[in-house]
């Protein structure tokens, strides 16, 4: 069968010693930053992007992907042991995971999280492999108007699913698209919004922007909060769940995995949304809802499976349609661009080893994480004792060197400083930065497809509504907007997206 043939190519690529090494390195780094609060996969991937210049494209992407799903593992470790979510996707794990730890069942909670994540990772890898072919085939039928409609749908869904009022999320998307227009207009060759600054002719690089907003401004925010951590470190004994634990966690894992796999594909979805949705589902379905919040194993098994599945399947829209579904995926677009690979349906046909190698490496990476995490829990927890005052200058240093290395020039460093101030304003106004970055990444493609579609239709905008594919995509976007405006759904969304 094709699927197995393709997976075989993938495993052959992923098993090359260099790629194994980078997958391991990515998983290790991902776990590390997942453990450390205040440093997320976003800033880390942004920091490492310039460094991946030196690597082979498949090694680079394998490492960056490892950071993303590795962070999901690391985040859950600290959530369980010290009640501190290292990542926003493990916020819900603190609820029941930490309670289990207090009852002396930290080991069981940790292995539940690890087994759930590993199982979800395996299923998501298979889902990715199975869905890639059909989706790519569909994408090849798409013309400019269909791509335009698809990206609009993606951006609308991303704003619907981001925190804060929907209208402000959309505003951030549009602002991001406007910022993406800075630089040379590819159709006419003229400069837009560059104000004669040669460094802007190629457009605003999004690495300094991401670093300013998610690296530097985030540090300023964290320093304002300076809350002291009280570490309750205890010996972790007995990693093995009992027979009763297994009976309760297996169905939760299956449900969490299914939910995460589906939500990950959705634009704006991914790990965070999946974990929250899974916790709500488990609590609703449970025969003992009163146990939730008091150490219910389902409350760990479900969300931990869901966030890992979601993290992995969010690669599907990126690799097949070229549409990043969340900000980390937007950074992956940047990583691919560095190596002259343009995400979209052509990746699978033009770079099959890269495509399938990346997918297979996710399975390999999950296996590494399983082995890496359980025995090393003590070490990870020790890392938490590093005070933030030593940690944040290190983040500053890596970010600054990373930004400089993009072009070996200081212009990008100043750009990051400007976006640090801008990011701080966004934090104070509680405006979500993720939609801005998605708008920035998708902006050029949206303009390009819009202009092409209009040329083909001789300026008739109704063509977007008369082609069945683009009409149904735009209809889906319209339905999402109408739904979000309904008062009851609005209230429930605010409840669900609250962190």
């Amino acid at each position, binding site marked *: 069968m094709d699927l197995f043939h393709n997976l075989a190519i993938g495993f052959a690529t992923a098993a090359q010693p260099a790629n194994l090494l980078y997958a391991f390195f990515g998983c290790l780094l991902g776990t590390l930053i997942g453990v450390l609060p205040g440093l997320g996969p976003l800033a880390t991937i942004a920091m490492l992007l310039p460094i991946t210049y030196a690597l082979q494209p498949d090694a680079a992407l394998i490492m960056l992907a490892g950071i993303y799903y590795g962070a999901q593992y690391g985040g859950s470790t600290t959530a369980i042991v010290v009640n501190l979510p290292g990542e926003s996707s493990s916020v819900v794990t603190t609820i029941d995971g930490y309670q289990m730890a207090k009852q002396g069942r930290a080991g069981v909670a940790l292995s539940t999280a690890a087994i759930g994540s590993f199982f979800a990772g395996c299923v998501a890898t298979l889902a990715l492999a199975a869905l890639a072919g059909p989706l790519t085939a569909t994408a090849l039928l798409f013309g400019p108007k269909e791509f335009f409609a698809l990206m609009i749908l993606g951006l609308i869904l991303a704003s619907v699913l981001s925190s804060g009022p929907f209208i402000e999320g959309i505003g951030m998307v*549009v602002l991001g698209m406007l910022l993406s227009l800075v630089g040379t207009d590819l159709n006419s060759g003229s400069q837009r919004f560059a104000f004669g600054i040669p460094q802007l002719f190629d457009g605003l690089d999004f690495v300094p922007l991401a670093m300013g907003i998610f690296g530097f401004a985030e540090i300023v925010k964290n320093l304002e909060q300076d809350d002291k951590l009280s570490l309750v470190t205890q010996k972790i004994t007995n990693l093995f769940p009992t027979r009763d634990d297994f009976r309760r966690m297996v169905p939760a894992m299956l449900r969490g995995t299914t939910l995460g796999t589906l939500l990950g594909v959705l634009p704006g979805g991914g790990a965070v949304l999946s974990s929250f949705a899974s916790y709500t589902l488990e609590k609703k379905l449970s025969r003992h809802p009163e146990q939730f919040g008091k150490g219910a194993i389902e409350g760990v098994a479900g969300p931990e499976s869901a966030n890992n599945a979601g993290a992995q399947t969010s690669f599907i829209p990126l690799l097949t349609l070229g549409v990043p579904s969340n900000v980390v995926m937007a950074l992956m677009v940047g990583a691919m661009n560095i190596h002259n690979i343009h995400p979209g349906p052509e990746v699978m046909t033009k770079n099959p080893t890269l495509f399938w190698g990346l997918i297979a490496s996710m399975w390999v990476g999950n296996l590494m994480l399983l082995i890496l995490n359980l025995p090393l829990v003590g070490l990870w927890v020790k890392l938490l004792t590093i005070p933030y005052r030593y940690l944040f200058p290190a983040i*500053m240093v890596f970010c600054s060197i990373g930004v*400089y290395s993009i072009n070996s020039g200081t212009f990008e460093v100043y750009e990051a400083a400007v976006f640090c101030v801008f990011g701080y304003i966004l934090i104070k106004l509680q405006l979500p930065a993720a939609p801005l970055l998605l708008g920035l990444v998708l902006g050029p493609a949206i303009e390009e497809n819009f202009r092409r579609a209009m040329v083909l239709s001789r300026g008739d905008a109704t063509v977007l509504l008369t082609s069945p594919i683009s009409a149904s995509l735009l209809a889906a976007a319209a339905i999402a907007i109408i739904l979000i405006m309904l008062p009851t759904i609005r209230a429930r969304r605010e409840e669900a997206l609250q962190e």
Partner: protein
Amino acid sequence: MKGLAIRNHRAFASGALFLAFAIFFFVTALQYPAGTAAKMGPGYFPRLLAIVLAAIGLVVILGAMKPAAGREALRAWDLNGLAWITGSVILFGALLFPLGLVGALFVLIMVSSRASHEFTWIGALTNAAVLIVLCLAVFVYGLGLPLPVWPSLLN
């Protein structure tokens, strides 16, 4: 009209931010030829987006002034922390070539460390020493990034 006061200051400021960017982009885009829908010039799409953003900004501003809007104040700003962090990044950019990586990193670490309430000289100096050695090992000798290590006068 009764109740047309700014009730939600956070949303009002957000809307004003959108509106300001929209005006800036629209006015700048007026220099670029718009063309027609069938043959768009470089100015067409920016104008379209700027109009959309302006409309969103107005909706957000009006929403903040609705009598039904919840009261929300602007959050307090910590300009000190922002100044130390942003300043340290700018200094790093400015000093990298004259001072070289070692000197610029030292300034970056010392200045940014001041942003913490728990700043101590010994802690920051130790941290700087460790991080500089680490960076030299990883970026300069390990990855071989083209970075000026020592002051340009010495070369």
